[in-house]
């Protein structure tokens, strides 16, 4: 009885957070009365919104997005393969380090690269020839965003590789050694597709970076309509294709791909790297880490002039707000995903759909949908839309981190909990939580970091009067106060990340 109440409240909560705003969003496109004049007006309006320029921008954006997705797919594929099918030292550490680029806010990432290659750049100073490279072009955008998104592709491809267990591999070895890639790619296809679409959606979420590089994108058009002209209606119309896109892809993904939640085979020890692989994999890892971590870090160190404390002290209040807010978000999101996975596990399909749908919803969509909804119920200007937005935005990641953990909570284990339980809460804390705790902490930390550095959604939904550290950095960037940005990045992004990788290193040593 108790668990049924929890289930019901959970469904209601999801409806309130996600379904209701979306329904409202769709409803506003249906004219209140349908007559000749209204239809004419609507027609004119649609023609006005989707004009030639917009369509051109859309095509360009789409092309850029596809390129970014393809590149991050390729870059993510290589480490995923080695991490799942080869043994080597410091595996956990390398896995964690390769995930870090995703945790650095893309705008800071690009900022650092501008500091490296651009006019103010260290690079141009090192070379006396004044060799500043023009990076205000689409190629640079593809390069930066692929480097920033590839960890997500890596994550998905790893999940796909985990389907290819010893049970599948052993017969291949016996019957057809060369069949490995044929079977692997076949089993991997859905995961490759999803990874592709998820990075595409991440690309559509990103409007700060393109605008730095002076590239006009579809998402910036939405942003301009919403945040500069306050034209919610036009923004809604521009958002509509993205919503429909994410719905369709979510349905497709849901159809073709099941995120496996089986226990990884602990006894499966993959073979060690052979010499040639060693050279390739280590150089690959070093190159990627230099490009995505070492260079940004050095630029931040140099530009901050090592003054880490003062800018932080100046923004003390904002810093604490951010810490508090991110803690709140990371706890509530992780908690929600755990409750969902535990209490709705019998509705695996629903959970999968929720995962894909939230994962594929680009940030501008969230911004527009939640703005319209919360304006309608007169709660805009509060912090609620932002909380809602962040929970929806980060929920899929938490679900992704937790799902494999809940694979360990098998049916028979769960039955024994029910027979021998002494209250549902005790069981949860004494049995379920200890079993899933690694994923739980990982989710807490990761979402904290993601939320701390997030600026796109904050820019759309933050109520007046409130500031977060990420937005603060964005503003400082606008005014060209590079030193402050660099030192704030160091203290707020790199120190947590350093702790995070130390943790991974420690865990790697212990095992």
């Amino acid at each position, binding site marked *: *009885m108790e668990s049924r109440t929890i289930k019901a409240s959970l469904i209601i909560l999801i409806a309130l957070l996600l379904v209701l705003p979306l329904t409202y969003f769709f409803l506003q496109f249906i004219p209140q009365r349908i007559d000749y004049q209204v239809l004419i007006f609507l027609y004119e309006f649609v023609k006005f919104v989707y004009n030639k320029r917009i369509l051109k921008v859309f095509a360009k954006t789409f092309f850029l997005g596809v390129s970014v997705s393809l590149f991050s797919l390729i870059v993510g594929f290589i480490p995923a393969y080695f991490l799942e099918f080869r043994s080597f030292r410091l595996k956990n550490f390398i896995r964690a380090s390769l995930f870090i680029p995703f945790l650095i806010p893309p705008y800071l990432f690009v900022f650092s690269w501008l500091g490296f290659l651009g006019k103010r750049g260290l690079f141009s100073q090192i070379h006396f020839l004044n060799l500043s490279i023009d990076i205000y072009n689409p190629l640079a955008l593809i390069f930066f965003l692929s480097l920033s998104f590839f960890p997500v592709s890596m994550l998905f491809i790893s999940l796909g590789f985990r389907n290819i267990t010893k049970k599948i591999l052993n017969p291949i070895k016996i019957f057809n050694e060369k069949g490995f890639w044929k079977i692997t790619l076949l089993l991997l296809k859905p995961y490759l597709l999803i990874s592709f679409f998820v990075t595409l959606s991440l690309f559509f979420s990103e409007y700060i970076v393109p605008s730095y590089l002076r590239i006009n994108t579809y998402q910036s058009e939405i942003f301009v309509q919403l945040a500069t002209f306050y034209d919610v209606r036009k923004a809604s119309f521009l958002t509509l294709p993205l919503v429909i896109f994410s719905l369709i892809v979510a349905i497709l993904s849901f159809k073709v791909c099941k995120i496996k939640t089986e226990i990884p085979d602990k006894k499966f020890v993959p073979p060690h790297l052979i010499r040639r692989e060693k050279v390739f994999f280590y150089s690959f890892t070093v190159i990627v880490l230099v490009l995505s971590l070492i260079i940004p870090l050095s630029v931040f160190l140099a530009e901050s002039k090592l003054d880490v404390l003062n800018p932080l002290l100046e923004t003390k209040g904002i810093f604490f707000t951010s810490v508090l807010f991110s803690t709140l978000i990371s706890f509530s999101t992780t908690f929600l995903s755990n409750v969902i996975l535990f209490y709705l596990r019998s509705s695996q399909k629903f959970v999968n759909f929720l995962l894909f749908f939230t994962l594929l919803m680009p940030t501008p969509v969230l911004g527009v949908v939640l703005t319209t909804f919360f304006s309608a119920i007169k709660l805009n200007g509060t912090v609620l839309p932002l909380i809602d937005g962040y929970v929806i935005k980060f929920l899929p990641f938490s679900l992704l981190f937790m799902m494999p953990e809940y694979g360990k909570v098998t049916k028979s*284990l769960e*039955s024994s909990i*029910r*027979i*021998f339980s002494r209250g549902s809460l005790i069981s949860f804390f004494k*049995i379920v939580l200890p*079993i899933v705790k690694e994923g739980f902490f990982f989710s807490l930390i990761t979402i904290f970091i993601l939320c701390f550095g997030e600026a796109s959604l904050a820019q759309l939904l933050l109520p007046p009067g409130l500031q977060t550290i990420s937005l603060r950095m964005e503003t400082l960037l606008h005014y060209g106060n590079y030193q402050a940005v660099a030192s704030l990045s160091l203290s707020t992004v790199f120190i947590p990340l350093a702790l995070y990788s130390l943790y991974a290193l420690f865990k790697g040593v212990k095992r």
Partner: protein
Amino acid sequence: MSYYITLHDVRKKFGKIEVLKGLSLNVKKGEIIGLFGPSGSGKSTILNLIAGLERPDGGRITLRNTTVASDNVFVSPEERNVSMVFQDLGLWPHMTVEEHLKFVSDDRRLISVVLKQLGLEKKKDRLPEELSGGERQRVSIARALTKPSDILLLDEPFSFLDLKLRERVKKTIKDYKKKNESTVVIVSHSVFDFIDLCDRVAILKDGKISKIEKPRELLLEFQKFYYRKPKR
């Protein structure tokens, strides 16, 4: 005569496959009843239905003369207060042997007695993954015997045990039954396990109980089956 566990016209489907097709079974108080039938015939399903881990698609189940499952009643496993050994054990991977028992009961004396009876005292600080198959099975049995209940369900509790251990475990189960005045349902593939444990054996066929016999009769039938001359 009132029964302690009854299943009346119980139906259970998994997807399109109908596993139980109107099965009825009555168990008297204090009785030990065996369930016998080919693999996949639905023995575990029956235990799960009695424990409340599955819901029947039709029919009625009563425990201690109260309906616990019917068209409009369903009592959750937490409220049925039964003890159980699972076919796939269902141990908790992060808990040691002793912690398993402590989770079930606060009675330290009982815990140490059960550990001793099942020969697990020396292994009490180990995790399930550090145990052999038979040891794990004994942990699962120990956990069940630590929870005092008047209904005990055993799903192939001896499958990983050698003959000597079987005898020891059977004795422990009998002690438990006496102490708690329990009614016991036990599933096994071995006729010999029924001989010295069960009062009656129910034989499952085509989703129903095809007959109920004394264990000796079942053994005789078996002997006939195995010792008849092969036809040429």
